[in-house]
Every structure is written in structure tokens, then in C-alpha cells.
């Protein structure tokens, strides 16, 4: 049986297997070298492992490569916070793809529009002191403004650019989406100017909280928790409400859904709006975490969120969450973990390469993603 399998293995398959093996070896080797770079001169491997597993306080720094255990922990926590943002944006890609089988290339700009518009509200609140006197209400309003702006932009986008093209060949909506993406970027540049804007820092979110004895920056906690809460709400919305059921029906089969009396156009608009509201929320969280917004801020997070959606299995809502968190952590830990081990100078520059490489690898080796159902080649 093994023999038969080997005979059927084509050249391409074996090349792909080689590629897979090479990458795994590279990552493992890099991690190994990176983590063991703290080994003292002349110390044997066995001694090193023994010293690291028994010693607790002083030895840890030398045992974790260049960084201390605390640093690694901070990397992971930061990764989770940014992963939460990716996941929120990824939901928009996943929802739309699930319903229309279309990559909404302009989703990153939907995210940007909310974050950028909400900045002005946040800034006004910071100036008149409302942000510090009533932080929860103020942040709530900022969040709402961002979500509403993003939703309006997404609904306009769907109505003007996508709806007339629903039955067109697939290349056409993709190009439209790319065009819309540039149009939105430069519209907001024209409206709000091209400079970077610094998000105000609410007093309530400065400093750290001790959670299970671990000090964590308050912003990161808030970002992560709000992302999780929003995702749970969305999941509930899609799984338990009547509208959510209609969405799933449309995703399953548009024509049959139409026969069942579902207003498909309305459901598609709701899908766009829901995804956009999540992206708008992600925009404010992004502003809180990275402190900066400008008119091209949507592009890179957009691509990464798409990666997260694909990673988790596109069209799959829990998949987007898992994919987002996974990508966030991987991106935050990866450069220091295995790229430095491989001797790459200034490894943080290659952060984006890790994300894109992961995207490429996932699409090559497991296009269905971590949690995704198997899509037939045709569908993809």
C-alpha cells in the first residue's frame, strides 16, 4: 500500500513535501538556536537543560535566549491583544466571504474610516475633559461613532460598488473592491488630511492591572476583553437570532434561501453591516493599542486580518477568532523566537514577512484553514 502511494506521488507533490519539511526544520532549528543561545561556554546540553529546569530565579534570563521569561510573557500578551483586533476585522472578511464568496478587499478601509472618524470625537472629549471625568461613557460614544461610520461606509460600498456586480465574473468585483479601496483611502486623506493623528490616552487606561499575579497593561486587557465580548455577541447573533439564521441560510444557498422567503438583498446588507460594525470597533481598539491613526492604516491590518480569516478557515466565525489570535501571537513572538536564532539581523523588520509567509503556507498546504470545512477547489 505504501508502495502504491509512493508511485502515485507526483514530482510536484514531492517538491511541496520538501518545502514543508524545509520550513518546519527551519522554524525548529531557529527556535532551538534562539532559545539555547544562553548556554554558557563549555556547558554541555544536558547540563544546560538541567540547570534551566532546576534553577528558578537567576538562571531564567540565560535560559530563554536573549530575553527574560517576563519579556516572552509580554510578547504573548501583546500578541493576544493585537490578535483580538485582527480577529475582529477578520470577522468582516469571513462573513462576507461566507455569503458572497467574494474577498471584500476594501474591508481594511472600512476599518480605517471608523477609527479615523472616531479619533475626532475622542480628541474633542479629551480636550474638554469628558474623557477623564466620564471615561466609560466617553469611550462608549467613541466606539459607537466608529462602528456607525464603518457601517455607513460598508453599506454605501455594497449598494454602489458590489450589488450591481453580484452576477459578474469574479475578477470584476475584485477589481471594483481594489478601486473602492483606493477611493476610500484618498477620500479620507482629502477629508481629514494626510498626517498621522495621535489617539488620546484616557487616564483610566494608563498603568497596569495585576491579573493572577501577572502585571498587564490596562489597555491590553481592555482591548483583549472587548474583542472577546464583541465576538461572543456576534457569534450569538449569527447562531441564535432569526436574522443570523437567515444569514446562514443565504451562505448555504442563495437561490433556495430566496425560495424560502428570505430577502437575500437585505441579508447581504446586514452581513456587510455586521462585519463593518466589528471592524469599526476594532478601529477604536487599534487606536487605543497603537495610539496612532492615519489614512493608510487599513491596508496592512486588512491583509493580516484576511490572513487570520484564511488561517482559521474562511467562512467560519470561530475560525476567524482562532486565526486572529494565533496570527497575533505568532507575529509578536516569531521574529525574536526563531528568526534571531537563524541569525537574521533586525528580525522585527520581518514581522510582516512572517504573516505573509503564514498566509502563503496555509493556502498552499491547508486551504481549509485550522477549523474550516473542506472547500472544494471550485469553490475556492
Amino acid at each position, binding site marked *: 500500500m505504501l508502495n502504491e502511494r509512493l508511485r502515485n506521488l507526483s514530482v510536484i507533490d514531492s517538491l511541496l513535501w520538501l518545502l514543508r519539511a524545509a520550513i518546519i526544520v527551519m522554524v525548529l532549528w531557529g527556535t532551538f538556536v534562539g532559545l539555547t543561545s544562553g548556554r554558557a561556554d563549555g556547558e554541555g546540553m544536558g547540563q544546560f537543560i538541567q540547570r534551566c529546569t532546576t534553577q528558578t530565579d537567576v538562571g531564567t534570563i540565560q535560559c530563554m535566549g536573549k530575553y527574560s521569561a517576563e519579556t516572552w510573557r509580554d510578547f504573548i500578551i501583546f500578541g493576544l491583544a493585537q490578535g483580538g483586533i485582527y480577529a475582529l476585522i477578520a470577522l468582516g472578511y469571513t462573513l462576507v466571504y461566507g455569503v458572497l464568496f467574494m474577498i471584500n478587499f476594501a474591508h481594511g478601509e472600512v476599518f480605517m474610516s471608523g477609527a479615523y472618524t472616531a479619533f475626532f470625537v475622542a480628541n474633542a472629549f479629551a480636550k474638554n475633559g469628558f474623557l477623564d471625568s466620564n471615561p466609560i461613557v466617553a469611550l462608549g460614544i467613541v466606539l459607537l461613532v466608529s462602528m456607525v461610520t464603518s457601517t455607513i461606509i460598508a453599506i454605501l460600498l455594497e449598494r454602489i460598488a458590489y450589488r450591481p456586480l453580484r452576477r*459578474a465574473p469574479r475578477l470584476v468585483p475584485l477589481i471594483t473592491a481594489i478601486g473602492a479601496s483606493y477611493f476610500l483611502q484618498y477620500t479620507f486623506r482629502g477629508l481629514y488630511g494626510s498626517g498621522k493623528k495621535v489617539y488620546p490616552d484616557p487616564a483610566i487606561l494608563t498603568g497596569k492591572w495585576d491579573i493572577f499575579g501577572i502585571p498587564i497593561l490596562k489597555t491590553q486587557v481592555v482591548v483583549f476583553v472587548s474583542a472577546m465580548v464583541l465576538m461572543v455577541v456576534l457569534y450569538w447573533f449569527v447562531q441564535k437570532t432569526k436574522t443570523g439564521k437567515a444569514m446562514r441560510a443565504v451562505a448555504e444557498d442563495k437561490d433556495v434561501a430566496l425560495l424560502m422567503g428570505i430577502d437575500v438583498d437585505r441579508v447581504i446588507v446586514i452581513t456587510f453591516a455586521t462585519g463593518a460594525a466589528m471592524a469599526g470597533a476594532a478601529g477604536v481598539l487599534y487606536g487605543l493599542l497603537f495610539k496612532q491613526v492615519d489614512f493608510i492604516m487599513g491596508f496592512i491590518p486588512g491583509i493580516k486580518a484576511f490572513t487570520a480569516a484564511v488561517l482559521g478557515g474562511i467562512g467560519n466565525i470561530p475560525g476567524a477568532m482562532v486565526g486572529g489570535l494565533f496570527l497575533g501571537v505568532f507575529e509578536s513572538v516569531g521574529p525574536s523566537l526563531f528568526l534571531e536564532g537563524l541569525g537574521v539581523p533586525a528580525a522585527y523588520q520581518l514581522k510582516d514577512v512572517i504573516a505573509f509567509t503564514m498566509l502563503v503556507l496555509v493556502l498552499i498546504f491547508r486551504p481549509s484553514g485550522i477549523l474550516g470545512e473542506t472547500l472544494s477547489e471550485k469553490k475556492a
Partner: protein
Amino acid sequence: MKTQTFDFKSVLKTSLLAGGILIYLALVGLLTAFLDRDIIYKTLSLSFALVLINNFVFGYIAAQHNSEHKWGTAIGIGVILGIVSTAMLSVLVLISEPLNMREMFVNASPTLVKALTFENENIVQGLLPLVLMGTASSVLGAVTFVLPPLWRKVLLAALIAVLAIGTLEELVSDVVTNIFKLFGNKRAAKPALKFFFGRKGWSVNGAIIMFVAAAVGSYLWNWRGSVVKEKIGALPKTAQRNLRIGTLIFLFAVAIFLPNILGGYLSEILVTVAIFTLMGFGLNIVVGFAGLLDLGYVAFFAIGAYTMGVLTSTQLSQTTELVSFGWNFWAALPIAVGMAVLWGILLGVPVLRMRGDYLAIVTLGFGEIIRVLALSNFLQPKIGGAQGILGIAKPTIPWFGGAIVLKSSLELYYLVVVAAALAAFVSWRLRDSRAGRSWMAMREDEDVAEAMGINLIKTKLLAFATGAGFSGLAGAIFAAKLTSIYPHSFNLLISINVLSLIIVGGVGSLPGVVVGGLVLVGLPELLREFSEFRMLIFGALLVTMMLVKPEGFWPAATQKRELHAGDEVEPTPTPEAA
């Protein structure tokens, strides 16, 4: 359908839309950016022309929606539309200062108020001319719709001619001067130019004469054009062929003298257009013929450029750890193309199993990876990181012992055009060859193609390799043209530009690539001074194009059939139908 009665609601809707767009134009900054840019010197600035064009177009649309061919109604529609839309803009002007809108919208500035009130101290009084002129323009638009078709065409052609030449006045005067120079009489150009043009844009006399001339020309063409066409059609076959050959020779002659006629700046644009067209031919093979959507095409452009850079740079040691190879352009060229082809195959292998959107995203990932790698310190010792590569050799042509260096764009033009023509020729010959037919079979249905005995792996890799080769060639020429390259030149925008140009031209169509290149690369370059708004216009153009004419300006025959057959057979189901 209410076609007979006057539909007030629809007119109001169009008016609100027109007003909304006016406000958008104002807030995005288009109304303040071109105040100094006169179309008719000291009479009409481009900014104000935008208001008038907007109202004209919407007046026309509103009349069309009512589709009633009566003068009175049309004028009524125009008046309503003009007043509503300009009133909306006026409200913006009135509230922008009291509400301090500038905090948020950078363009709601005193400049905007001044511009729209014609610097009148009394704002309300100052807004009157805006309302009056806007209304006049929308009435004109609405009336244009009611005109008999011939007169409508003539009027539109004349208006467009005046606006277009007025906008590009500087370039037009340059070309006129150059034409006179070509005939050895540079001085004669001056008085004529002075009469027609002001310091910026048309002079009033020039505009009127141009308007009349364009109107007469258009009238003659619409009146007699079909007769001329018929006469040519009635000529015997040999005469027709001679005519075609004559036209070709004429075009060829024009192509040879083009750089001299156009002058430095326009030649520069032509070189850029030709480089993009060259890439367009390559991508057309991948996307148009083989149906493989590639968004990372810039990767091969970068590989070609960097290979050329590393091999020919004389200042390599400045930014990298390598010592100069010091090759000349022609020796490095095949290597650059070869590297691109090699990488085309290497990057093609992993994606052989992918289709559609997934392929697009993976290739996009490849493109970004190459750019980030080029920018990183990791590869800095080899290709210079963020500092790029300097001192790349210019192409030379050996000539009787010495050598001609192609340094200015006037001379590089010939090299690029030859390369693009070569790419066009290769694509044309490949299209109907065995390889071309297998590509198209694969594009239509991979499984059926495989069943017909087409080796998919070989066919796909051949498409990737050919496409990458053209892109590498373009990259090599690009590097030699600029003599220094930086990672920032190789961003996603190039891939998108090339893809857009073949789609706007018509996927799979060879003349379409040239048309797409002229429209999407040439036009924005002509509008260089619009820099801030180029991408805005580019995006809007892409969306509009896909909505209105998804098959492109010059579609290939099959593509056209497919897109139009779809329209008729499958009407989009509406909820009411259910």
C-alpha cells in the same frame, strides 16, 4: 413607470445627489486645490469648472430620468436641480466657520469660503453668483438632453474639447512649439500661442474659436463621417490594403518623430507608459490568456530590476558589501530576464493547485514578501536594503568604434518601444499557437482541458515563466532608466496598476493593453500636478469602469460575448420577484 408626468420626487433625489457630490468635492479639497489652475485665463478656474461640470452632468441625468422631450420641463428640472444643489453647497459655506468644521475637515477652510463667495465680504451676497451659475449650468445640461441627437453630440464634443485642452494647456503649447521647431521655424509659434492661450489656460478668444472649431469639426464628422466610411468600404480590396499599409507607415513615421514632437516631459511619460505596457503584455498572458489571477506581479519586476542593478552598478560597494561587477546593460539583460523566469517557475510551483481568489491572495503575499525582504537589513549586504542600489549603468549602443549612451528619455523611448513591440509580437504569435490555445482551454475549464490531454503543470508554468520574463525585462529597463533603485519603488501599487490596465483595456486583448496603458498610466502622469487626487480619481475610475463597461475599452471577442450574454440570460433576481 412614470414616463409621461413630471416626476418631482425623482428630480429632487437627483438634486440631492448632485448637492451631496458638490459637498464631497468641497470637503475632499478638489474645489480649493485648483483655484489657480485656469481653464480660461482669469475667467474660469478648474475648481469652479468642476462645480459647473457636476451640475451639467446631473442636469442631463435628471432630464434623462424624466425622459420627456419638452423644453419647458427640461428648463424646470434644470432650475430645481441647480438651486437645490448649489444651496446645499452654500449651506456648507455658511456653517463651516461658525461650527469650526476645520477641526475635523481640513478643507472646510477660509480658502473654500473665499473661493465660493468670490472673495465677497458679505457671504450671503457672495454666494449668489455660485447659485446662478450652477443653475445656468444644470439648465444647460437638462436642455442638452432635449436637443436633437446631432446637435447634442456637437455641443458635447465642443465643450469637452475646450475643457480638455484648457486643462492640459501647458503641454499643448509645448507640443505646438515643438512641431514648429521640427520644421525649423520656432519663432512662428509664439504669436499664435499668445493669441490662443493666456498665461494659464485659454484666452477668452482662444476658447471661443476652439469651441466653434470643435463644433464645426464634430458637425462635419457626424454629418459626413458615415459617408466617408462607406466610400472606403466600397473601395476594391487592394486599395483598402494599400490604405491600411499607408496608415501603418504614417503611424510608424509619427512614432519615430514622437519624442521630438512631444518634448522631454511627454516623452518621459511615454517611456513610463511603454514600460507598463510591456508588463501589461506579460500579465495579459498570465491573467488574460491562462486565467491565473496574479497580484504579485511586481515581484518579477523587482527581480529584473535588482539583477540589472547588482550586475551593472558602478557604486555597488556604497550600499552593499559586494564589489562592483561592472557589466554593461546588454550583458546583464539576459541574466535579468532569466532570473525573473526562474523565479516565475519557482513561485509558480507551490501555487499550481490554486485557483481564483486564493491564487490572487497568495501571489499578493509573494509580492509583499519580496518587497519587505528587499527593504530589510537581512538582505542589505547583497542588495542594499533601504538605501537601494545606486549608479546603475545606462544602456549603450556601439556605433563605429564609439558608443551612444541612451541617457535621456528621448533616447530611451526607442529602446522601450522596441521592447514593448517585441512583447506584443510574442504575445500575438503565442496567442494562436498550441501553447496559447492550451492556456485558453485551461482558462475556460481546467478539468476539461486536462481531459483533452493538456499537461496542466507544464502549461501553467509556461504561462508564469513567460509573464515573469516580460516583467523582468521591464524591470531591467526601469533600473537602467532610473540608474538607482529603492525597495519603495516595488510596492503593491505596481501590480495593481498593471492588472487594472489590462482589465480596463480588456482582458486578453492585445490592443487593449496599449489602450489601458495610455488611459491608466498616461493620463494620471499627465495630471501629475493633481498628485494628491490621482489615486482618488484612479479608484473612482476603476469602480466606474467595472460598473459601466466591465469588458474594457477594447475587449477581446470572447470576453465581450461572455459578459453581454450574461446580462441578457440571467437577470438579477429581485426580492419582489420572490
